[in-house]
């Protein structure tokens, strides 16, 4: 019988650790497919965050290391600088990257570390039970802003991709979503581009991916897809905010 579809080698056979309807699984699989397609598994070090993404330790079938909360870009810096021939990516959520690790991500980006960052933005702290994240939408409820995020009190959502694209150094910064098959396919292309940049030694790439959290949003998995389209993407428009891949390749 002909094998037409299989689980990527970059993930293992453990049961899926995330909540029902959570799209961390989608993002994980996209990354794993790209790792397989590029033949990177044996030279990859995955740098895990603190948050739901830590559960990746149960999934990744590649060397991996768990960071303290928010520090993944610094940890990745230490690995990549001492092993420039290896492939290093971080997988981080919005609390990890956008709040406690904001300094680490900005400086890793500004130094132009030759790593790839996958930033999964679901507008909430998932693992700790639904607290307000830097990316929680205005009016969106969370356990620490139970009447909804109020800009008077909490300010506006932090637009990570746009902020990082303000820096001169980064090579590729883009935002995707995984709420529709078309968007999933586009996200995979973005991940490919970010990974290719690292393989080519070009510099820092960040791919932000809008995702969901049915459990803590208190919304059914299907309804989260519309929520992303109607609400999240209004605040966080999809797009490429920086692409100097060709310029960087020319300089090289």
């Amino acid at each position: 019988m002909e094998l037409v579809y299989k689980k990527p080698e970059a993930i293992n056979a453990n049961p899926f650790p995330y909540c029902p309807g959570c799209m961390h699984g989608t993002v994980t699989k996209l990354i794993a497919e790209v790792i397989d397609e590029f033949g990177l598994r044996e030279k990859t070090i995955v740098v895990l965050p603190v948050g739901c993404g830590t559960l990746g330790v149960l999934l990744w079938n590649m060397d991996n290391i768990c960071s303290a909360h928010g520090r993944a870009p610094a940890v990745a810096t230490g690995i990549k600088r001492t092993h420039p021939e290896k492939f290093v990516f971080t997988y981080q959520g919005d609390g990890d990257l956008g709040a406690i690790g904001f300094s680490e991500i900005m400086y890793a980006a500004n130094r132009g570390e030759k790593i790839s960052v996958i930033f999964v933005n679901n507008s909430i702290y998932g693992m700790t039970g639904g607290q307000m994240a830097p990316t929680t939408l205005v009016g969106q409820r969370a356990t620490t802003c139970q009447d909804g995020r109020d800009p008077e009190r909490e300010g506006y959502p932090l637009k990570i991709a746009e902020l990082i694209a303000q820096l001169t150094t980064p090579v590729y910064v883009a935002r995707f979503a995984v709420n529709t098959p078309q968007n999933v396919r586009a996200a995979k292309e973005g991940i490919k581009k970010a990974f290719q940049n690292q393989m080519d030694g070009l510099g820092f790439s960040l791919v932000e991916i809008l995702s969901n959290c049915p459990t803590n949003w208190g919304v059914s998995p299907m309804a989260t897809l519309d929520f992303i389209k109607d609400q999240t993407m209004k605040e966080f428009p999809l797009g490429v905010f920086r692409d100097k891949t060709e310029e960087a390749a020319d300089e090289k």
Partner: protein
Amino acid sequence: MESKFMKGCEAIAEAAIRSGCRFFAGYPITPQNEIPEYLSRALPKVGGVFVQGESEVASINMVYGAGGAGTMAMTSSSSPGVSLKLEGVSNLAAARIPAVMVNVMRAGPGMGTIQPAQSDYYLMSKAPGHGGFRTITLAPATLQEAVDLTYEAFELAFRDRMPVIVAPDGFIAAIMEPVDLPDYRDPPETPAWAVAGCEGRDHINVLLNGGLNEEDQLAKNRIAEELYEKWDREDVRVETYKVEDAEYVFAAFGLAARICKSCVDELREEGIKAGLIRPITISPFPYAAFAALEDNVVKYVIDVEMSIPAQMVNDVRLGMKDRFPVAQVNTAGGLILDSEDVIAKVHELVKGV
């Protein structure tokens, strides 16, 4: 072996390179800036990497990454900066990643002053981070010892897969002294446990800074406990100086011990039987050296520290089991211990006995 006249920080940095250190990340803070400055020049020349981190927190986490990938890695800082690094030290201990941290101690608490002190004794010897763990913490009293201990710290770190702390005070880091530098040695091959890509292995490596579940965490704590107990048995280092017949025994480490040692000689010339117990490892602490003090010989133990409140004194009491009265000479704020104060205290005790 090569002899040189060097400044403290630079000699420590050079010793690190000679030991095989090939990664350094740090953030500026006085009085240790000559360590990163030296390494920013010297590391690239031997194929190493220097990164100026955006913070102490980022720097220790870069070390966590480099060490996790199997490179001999180091960071340095001074007391207020070390507070910030302790998150990373705890994670290094949890994930069993080797690294060396140099803490050039200055006066505290808070911002304190930039002058020498021994203000971080508790922090460096008892709980250099959250969660319950220990480190081997080395406290040099001379520049030569700072060089030798830094060189050796990397061996200990790799032997145990643990962070090792070298804790000189700001004085030792700032003085210039002649030192014999140990020979250069090649950095180790990437160890089998390192996360550096699974090519050539039939399994993946995972470095996890926590437990997969309660039982896993408990098991990790038990394994670590065994290691700490082994340190207590095998890795304690102490210098005892003229203690055999001493009636007045100084307890001091680092610079304070160096000053006390000269006081021992001065007092002995006067006919006063003085001695010194100098912990070289402030963790594991040399309790046995204090337990060995003889009941009918010792009249006073004089704890001498550049810290107010005194900190090591509690370990001293524990070691000698409170058998002798304790006198105290201490200073703080960045003011160097005055040997005359030490001598005067002993004269006072001799008169009073």
